[in-house]
């Protein structure tokens, strides 16, 4: 009973910012704004940007993911880690760095006198795809490496050549993973403000900021609602397409490739194909940041900077523990009770991650405004406010990691424990928890890395004198274009998230 009640309370907590988008809406007004903005080009720009970034990210991700999953070649294992590392670099930092390299009065211009104006949709596509393709890479690689080798052999015995096998078997089998990766990627594209506004484009998020009128947030509410409707459309399409094909996970023997060793020119070709995205997304920008940042390191590394690092780490750790504990509770409840209504509720638990962070922030502000009007108790900023906001947003990340681990439990393992006379609590402690442990660590790390980079919620809800590295980097770039100074906090962000991702990858191999 207590468990069920708390599940309901947590669910309400998780979706409350969205409920408040729909509270006291002036529908005729909303409709008039819809009419007014319908022709506005930000809808179109958002969709176009999402499509372009998706295409380019597939280009960066698919071939390397397949090579790394199915072949053995020079540098394979190190490259497989390096492809995850761009996750450590926030997109806005990459955007500023590339403008600093290629743009007016940038590095390239100082050597050659040539510059490229990359502040347009193509430049932004390039930058965002580099920052975000690891989402596609990661899920696709996992899916490729779990593919049944028998299926590929079956296709060979049915006279299908290499290209036919790729197009008719390998890609379609991994389609759910690819789409899952693209979904995450597009959420991030929609969420991005720093890079998009710096490159002069209009998307839902920049429009939310532009229309943000503190006296009247209804235009923002409208945008939130239309965005939620768009998301719903995507989810429905996804559901319709995959509804009949739930058994994608191959069962039986011969899962995974033998990874035969490539030799000669093929070896080097595979190496270079896999190196290319890493070069653009990681090596080049980090080198540039180092060139800018190293001379400033001593100058900036004072006690204030140490505080900055401690703040960042402390709030990230606190929030990721809260987040993972909550997800552990929710996923355990779902998989132990196995009640259909909880299953339905569980679809709402990830909502916070599917909308831009700014919109979530608006929702929280709306709740607090109404509460302060009703009860006289408003929002109070502290590290806990921030942790709560992070939990609302990133619960999806940790929940999904734990949920998929629960789904892979050996069949009837809990029943075996019950049968041996252990009650539910004991079973949870002695069976569920040990089995879920690696995923708990993975969930912690994933949430941690997300929080380190997070910007819109941190900006809104951090309290006095509590800056994080991400804020410092962003403000330095934003207010003065002081990209040199910003390179120091940027490098530390990259470095801090580098370590756990490296650890996670080495654990999973």
């Amino acid at each position, binding site marked *: 009973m207590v468990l069920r009640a708390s599940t309901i309370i947590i669910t309400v907590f998780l979706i409350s910012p969205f409920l408040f988008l729909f509270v006291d809406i002036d529908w005729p007004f909303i409709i008039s704004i819809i009419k007014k903005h319908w022709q506005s080009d930000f809808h179109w720009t958002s969709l176009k940007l999402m499509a372009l970034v998706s295409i380019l990210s597939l280009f960066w991700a698919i071939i390397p993911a397949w090579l790394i999953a199915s072949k053995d070649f020079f540098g394979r294992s190190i490259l497989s880690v390096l492809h995850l590392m761009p996750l450590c670099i926030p997109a806005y930092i990459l955007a500023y760095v590339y403008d600093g390299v290629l743009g*007016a*009065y940038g590095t390239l*211009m*100082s050597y050659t006198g040539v*510059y490229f*104006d990359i*502040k347009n949709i193509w430049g932004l596509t390039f930058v965002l795809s580099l920052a975000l393709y690891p989402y596609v890479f990661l899920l696709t690689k996992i899916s490729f490496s779990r593919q049944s080798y028998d299926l590929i052999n079956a296709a060979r015995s049915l006279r299908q050549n290499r290209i036919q096998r790729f197009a008719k078997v390998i890609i379609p089998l991994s389609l759910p993973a690819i789409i899952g990766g693209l979904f995450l990627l597009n959420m991030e594209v929609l969420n991005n403000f720093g890079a998009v*506004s*710096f*490159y*002069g484009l*209009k998307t839902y998020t920049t429009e939310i*900021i*532009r229309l*943000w*009128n*503190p*006296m009247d*947030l209804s235009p923002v509410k409208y945008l939130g609602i239309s965005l939620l409707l768009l998301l719903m459309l995507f989810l429905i399409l996804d559901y319709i397409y995959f509804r009949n094909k739930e058994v994608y996970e191959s069962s039986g023997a011969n899962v995974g490739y033998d990874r035969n060793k490539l030799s000669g020119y093929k070896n080097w070709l595979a190496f270079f194909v896999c190196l290319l995205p890493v070069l653009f997304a990681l090596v080049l920008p980090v080198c540039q940041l180092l060139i800018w940042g190293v001379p400033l390191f001593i100058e900036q590394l004072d006690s204030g900077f140490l505080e900055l690092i401690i703040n960042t780490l*402390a709030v990230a*750790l*606190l929030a990721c*523990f*809260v987040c993972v*504990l909550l997800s552990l509770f929710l996923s355990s409840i779902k998989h132990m009770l196995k009640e259909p209504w909880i299953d339905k509720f569980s679809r709402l638990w990830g909502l916070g991650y599917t909308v831009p962070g700014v919109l979530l922030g*608006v929702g*929280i*502000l*709306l709740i*607090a*405004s109404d509460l*302060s*009007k009703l009860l*006289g*108790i*408003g*929002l*109070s*900023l*502290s*590290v*806990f406010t921030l942790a709560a906001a992070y939990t609302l947003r990133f619960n999806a990340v940790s929940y999904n990691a734990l949920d998929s681990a629960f789904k892979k439990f050996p069949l009837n393992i809990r029943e075996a424990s019950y049968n041996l006379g252990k009650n539910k609590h004991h079973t949870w*402690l002695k069976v569920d*928890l*040990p089995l879920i*442990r690696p995923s*708990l660590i993975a969930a912690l790390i994933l949430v941690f890395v997300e929080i380190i980079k997070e910007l819109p919620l941190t*900006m*809104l809800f*951090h*309290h*006095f*004198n*509590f800056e994080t590295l991400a*804020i410092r980097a962003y*403000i330095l770039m934003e*207010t*003065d*274009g002081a990209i*040199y100074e910003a390179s120091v906090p940027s490098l530390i962000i990259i470095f801090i998230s580098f370590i756990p991702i490296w650890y996670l990858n080495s654990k999973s191999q």
Partner: protein
Amino acid sequence: MIKYFLSICVLLAYLFLGCKGSAEQEKAEVNVYTHRYYDIDKDLFKAFEEETGVKVNVKHDKTDKLLSLLKAEGNQTQADLLITVDAGRLQYAREMDLLQSFKSTKIDSNLPQNFRDKDGFWMALTRRHRVIAYHKGRLDTALVKNYSDLGRQELNSRLLIRSSNNIYNQSLVASLIANQGAENAYEIIKGWVANFARTPKGNDRDQVKSVALGEGDCAVINTYYIGKLAFSKNEEERKAISDIGIIFPNQETTGTHTNISGAAIVKHAPNYNNAVLLLEYLSSLKAQEAYAHKNYEFPVNPDASLPEFLSQWPKFKIDSLDLNSLGYYNKAAVELMEKESWF
């Protein structure tokens, strides 16, 4: 496993409760919500701390978000001072009932009447003027005397200006509406948009750089960006600025558009006295000269001296419009720009 988990959580929780508790006991502080994040602000706050022993706590964000936050916080807020980069938004804050009026003879003597709210709800910190930067070799200055001249056909696709999202542009248009009426303002905007060299992007600094690189001949920017570029750490940027000249528009009519970076005291401010203390400090001669010398903004204290860089510019007539009207006409301005689909 679970034991580690819980103990770490409890530890962290205590750690932060401890921090927060000790922070609340200390009352010798003033909490600032600010849209300004220049090095000069940090330096001034530090100097203030040393002089008075009152600690300055800062949170930075865009004004609009800070206002929403203040509204959500209600009487729970810890903020004492709100600092914006625009007069119109101060007017907004007052309309939202987020501010309280303050009285200080020091401030009254430091600042002239037009840089203080007549009801005592805000004061100016610095003034900024929206001027026209042009390429000395490519633009005939006889062509451009007023803001409206930027719409002349001779300047077709030669004009650079940042996005209409930007509050400086919104307030410029609001001042045009206030001074010349909505219809004239609309004609002016129409002319500008027709002359855009490209879709607006980047900040004022980028507009100047683009003029130097030949993407356009003139750009609408705030004065202090010229100073920042002239003293940039990047040698290329310093070189770029040498070809750039400045026009102060509307000298024979209303004067060059004037906006302010301003400060106000929050309605539920827990540390009212310290907030007034800080405002007095920021209006003092010392602070005002620091704004001018370090950040190339114009001081609002008439006694403050200008750095050589600013004093070499000719004396120019400034717009004496009531700054509150920038707030009154903001909505109309945004609508005008939207109507002309100024990006």
